[in-house]
């Protein structure tokens, strides 16, 4: 199984040093293609995507999240975290607030 990082150059370089393979992308199209490629690869277990890019290709990410494998996680990039509302909202709707 592999972990794949999708993000800007700095993020990907950083993770390469920590032993994780990654592709850096510069446009939403590239991000979408990278995500597709990562999903298509048979041995992908975990996809880390920076929040900035996942926000740019929100619908593709949502579709990918519905699958059990691989797991897609959004991570903050070097410009700091963005609000992660989707999960909080989901939790609230489940608990019933």
């Amino acid at each position, binding site marked *: 199984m592999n972990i794949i990082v999708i993000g800007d150059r700095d993020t990907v370089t950083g993770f390469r040093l920590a032993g994780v393979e990654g592709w850096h992308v510069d446009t939403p199209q590239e991000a979408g293609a990278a995500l597709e490629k990562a999903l298509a690869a048979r041995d992908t277990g975990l996809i*880390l995507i920076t929040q900035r890019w996942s926000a740019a290709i929100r619908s593709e990410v949502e579709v990918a999240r519905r699958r059990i494998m691989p797991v897609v996680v959004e991570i903050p990039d070097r410009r700091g975290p963005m609000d992660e509302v989707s999960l909080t909202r989901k939790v609230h709707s489940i608990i019933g607030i």
Partner: protein
Amino acid sequence: MEVRVSPTRMQLLRTRKRLAVAVRGHKLLKDKRDELMKKFLALVRRNKELREEVEEKLGKAFKSFLMARAVMPPEVIEEAIMYPKRVLEFDATSVNILSVKVPKFSWAEKGEAQESEIYPYGPAATASELDFAIGSLAEVLPKMIELAEVEKSVELLSAEIEKTRRRVNALEYVLIPQLEETARYITMKLDEMERGNLTRLMKVKEIVRERGA
């Protein structure tokens, strides 16, 4: 709600049996829902902790990385990190939480795993900020893998809770009242027939007595 059954004793027994099953199922599902909720909330809490930690540590790592960028020429950085030393072995299995399959990750480092060996370059030509950046990234990676695990579990569990809750509600507010209604309708109807029969019998007896007299 309209009840469409023939009011017979047989049907009454059948309805009562169904009602008993429904009530039992309702209780079981309710227990399942509560237990799922308990697990879910614990996971949500853990998820929040992990996310905050990961965000903080990543922020630090990227800051150091930026500093390293600033004090070192880009070619030197590129050269320094051309060949990453750490290679991560990563494996995924799944575990069962109340019949919900959630992923479980395990990972290990391949190659030299000594503390001082994670840097793929010599210390002479590079800034110490790069060391910090790499060190904290290496540190945050296990947390991140756990975060992925927990986040996915939360997601899967939430779907299951939703489903279970719907079932509980369907039983509680639709099926069980409907069955009770049916049972009541049949008993009433049977009683009514019983009374009708009784008066008829009395009437017949009266007529017979009149004729006899």
